[in-house]
């Protein structure tokens, strides 16, 4: 909380979510959505304090290796197997302003495409030095970065031969609970992106393209790691500067 205490707190309502830009709830090609999608219309409500406010996380929660998936589960002196990469970018709002103090949590499969999870059944081996989770908090300019290995693609039981493109899952907290977002980042050039039923739940190709991180040679660490850039945009707020106040409020 101390990290953003010198910026004026924002109290405006968020812009309405563009529901046509996001995936609809029911996307039959992604079979699990069939029984898990609400069928009735959502109840629209202008934001109240419950949505305008949200939990804020300070850097004090972070451990030294939280942003280093190559080492945060590895035995001392060892490291995870795989292509070493840096993932970095900025968290912005829809008005293009940086979102400082945003908590990002990420999780991913190992280099062979295998998750460390008891329900995971893919035959690719576990890496004893890779857990698959990490987190960080954006700085004053909304920037973040973490170190990991490039996850492998993996098959999943949807169609008879569906494969997920290589991806990293992101969970994002901005400053208001209405900004809460979970998404996935993909890697430039992966031919599986355009064959994936989960990617294809998103109707607008431009929205998909914004989930694909380009290779960013300017931010590589020579002889160590390549870099991919992934910016995240959260909902923006209406300005409260000239807001009408109702009588008696």
């Amino acid at each position: 909380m101390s990290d953003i205490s010198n910026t004026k707190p924002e109290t405006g309502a968020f812009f309405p979510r563009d529901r046509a830009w996001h995936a609809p709830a029911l996307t039959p090609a992604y079979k699990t959505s069939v029984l898990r999608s609400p069928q009735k219309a959502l109840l629209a409500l202008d934001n109240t304090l419950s949505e305008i406010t949200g939990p804020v996380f300070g850097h004090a929660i972070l451990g030294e290796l939280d942003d280093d998936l190559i080492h945060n589960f590895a035995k001392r002196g060892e490291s995870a197997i795989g292509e070493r990469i840096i993932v970095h970018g900025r968290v912005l709002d829809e008005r293009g302003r940086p979102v400082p103090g945003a908590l990002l949590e990420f999780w991913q499969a190992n280099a062979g495409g295998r998750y460390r999870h008891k329900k995971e059944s893919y035959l690719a081996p576990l890496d004893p030095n890779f857990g698959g989770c990490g987190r960080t908090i954006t700085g004053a300019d909304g920037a973040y970065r973490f170190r990991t290995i490039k996850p492998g693609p993996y098959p999943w039981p949807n169609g008879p031969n569906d494969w997920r493109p290589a991806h990293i899952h992101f969970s994002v907290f901005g400053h208001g609970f209405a900004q809460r977002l979970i998404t996935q980042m993909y890697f430039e050039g992966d031919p599986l992106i355009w064959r994936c039923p989960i990617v294809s739940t998103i109707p607008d190709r431009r929205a998909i393209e914004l989930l694909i991180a380009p290779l960013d040679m300017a931010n590589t660490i020579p002889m160590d790691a390549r870099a991919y850039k992934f910016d995240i945009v959260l909902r923006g707020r209406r300005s409260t500067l000239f807001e009408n106040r109702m009588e008696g409020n």
Partner: protein
Amino acid sequence: MVQELGQLKETASQTAGPYVHIGCTPNFAGITGVYEADLGASMVNDRTRGQRITICGRVIDGAGTPLKDAMVEIWQADAAGFYNSPSDLRGQADPNFTGWGRCPTSADTGEYVFETVKPGRAPFKDGRLMAPHITVWIVARGINIGLHTRLYFPDEVEANAEDPLLARIEHRHRVETLIASVEGSVYTFDIHLQGEKETVFLDI
């Protein structure tokens, strides 16, 4: 041509998938030694003010089966109606109450559980008081974009009757999908994704 507005589009949501617990509650997922504790596992401490309550329930799919791979988050005001957030300018919330909780649904029963306090009333935009409520957010495999809803309390009949959100629900029999049931200090709130009892979800 005119100048561009320069608005950005929100990053598209994608499902949290079956392994959301690796990233959000790794200790629960058996990945220990990375984080000391899972975030959101505890909302209260010994000094938290207010009436202690337990919130529990299940997330149920269109076939009547509880989801065993979901994650539920709640966000609420403290006992006096203040939010532990810099964006609540009305006053200082209870420093011993986070207001935010996160719980995976049980791999055996599908149940989620939160130990919290009963929230106070906070004002709606026009100054009217809302009934005490808890914001609930649900993600899981098969859910493409997180679902927002609210839990209201069955023992707040008068406040519920004047709540601006509950008043907006056109089909009045659906109001009860947002009202928990109570036994002692335990409130049960089952969330139905589909069907006859489909919970009212919010576009907020």
